[in-house]
């Protein structure tokens, strides 16, 4: 269970949000909504522990994530708006190596299934530089198929650049994760029907 209390974020001299209290229970998808520049990405980076909040704490299973550190990151899968895909590696190498570094199962069969689930079965050995923007996004998301052991997924605009089939594949993946009592936090501007229990939090511009 992920929760925050009195979270505040100051970027430069702009207050993005203050006194933010969130709670994501197992099996729940938290949809963070808000206009551009309302602090969605900053919030997700704080929840990941990439950024320190100006005030307040983020707790995972009741403990401050800044104390847990590696123990927290072990159970976290993050897809930011940067794909984390290397141009000079093939799609399969990208998924394999990044899953292996994260400590997730990364055998050939798992990687192949992950890519196939996102319609990349024929592009396994193609270098990522030869893939389109949407296909690269799929490679980044295919990693999540290896991350079923990580209970918390934090996804920043995961649906951008995806076509309808890509969106369906990702929704299904998120649905399966929620069904095994995982937690998901995501932002999106698209009107995607999300499976399972979805709670919504709206970030207002202050």
């Amino acid at each position, binding site marked *: 269970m992920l929760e925050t209390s009195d979270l505040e974020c100051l970027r430069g001299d702009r207050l993005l949000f203050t006194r933010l209290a969130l709670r994501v229970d197992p099996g729940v998808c938290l949809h963070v909504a808000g206009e551009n520049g309302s602090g969605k990405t900053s919030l997700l980076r704080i929840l*990941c*522990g*990439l*950024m*320190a909040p100006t005030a307040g704490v983020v707790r995972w299973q009741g403990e401050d994530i800044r104390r847990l550190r*590696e*123990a927290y*990151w*072990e159970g*976290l899968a*993050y897809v*930011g*708006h*940067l*794909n*984390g*895909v*290397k*141009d*000079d*590696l093939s799609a399969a*190498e990208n998924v394999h*190596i*990044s899953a*292996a*570094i*994260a*400590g997730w199962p990364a055998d050939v069969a798992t990687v192949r299934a992950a890519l196939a689930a996102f319609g990349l079965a024929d592009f396994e050995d193609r*270098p990522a530089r030869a893939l389109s923007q949407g296909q690269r996004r799929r490679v980044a998301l295919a990693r999540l198929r290896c991350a079923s052991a990580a209970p918390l997924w934090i996804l920043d605009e995961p649906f951008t650049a995806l076509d309808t089939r890509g969106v369906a594949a990702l929704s299904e993946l998120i649905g399966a994760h929620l069904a095994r009592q995982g937690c998901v936090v995501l932002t999106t501007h698209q009107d995607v029907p999300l499976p399972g229990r979805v709670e919504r939090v709206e970030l207002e511009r202050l």
Partner: protein
Amino acid sequence: MIAAVGQVVRRDLLLAVRQRADVVNTLLFFVVVVTLAPLGVGPEINTLRTIAPGVVWVAALLASILSLNRLFALDFADGTLEQLLLTREPLAAIVLGKVAAHWLVTGLPITAMAVPLAVMFDLPRAQAATLVLALLCGTPALSLLGAIGAALTLGLRGGGVLVSLLVLPLNVPILIFGAGAVEAVAGGLSAQAHLLLLAALSLATSVLAPWAIAAALRISLE
């Protein structure tokens, strides 16, 4: 942990093989800078023998700094660095893997290239061997200290010049002991003390620098 660090090294080596031009360019830069010295100083053989260790070391230092921008900037731009920061492994270990991969594609080839360059300067065999040994002991510290600068200046405009200004002063002791080792042999003394000091510097930085690099990366990514 070892498996994950091994994967980090493997990825960086794989990328270095696929982007061979970057690696070759650094090496060529090293060779060109060293070959410029005789052209500037003139062909007097004894002068060349005297300046050879210093010239090779300065060129190695510059080449290693030139290659630093490859270390974290690309990972930073494509988001893989973010992912490395969010793994269950201690970041210092991962960073050590990245620096090791960097040394394998810069420090090690530079050390190997010093052999023909020593011949070019007509260094006697004992001095040439000492020069190569000194590079082998000292270049890991160059990569490690350079990585601190690269991590600190990540994402800054004009970071390249700033890295040089930050890192070059830190490299002065390595330069002194590195070139000094060869001079000692030329003067009929043993280079052991110099080489041991260089190795000690490399070992000490390999223990301490990863923590500094890890902290700098976390600050740069905030």
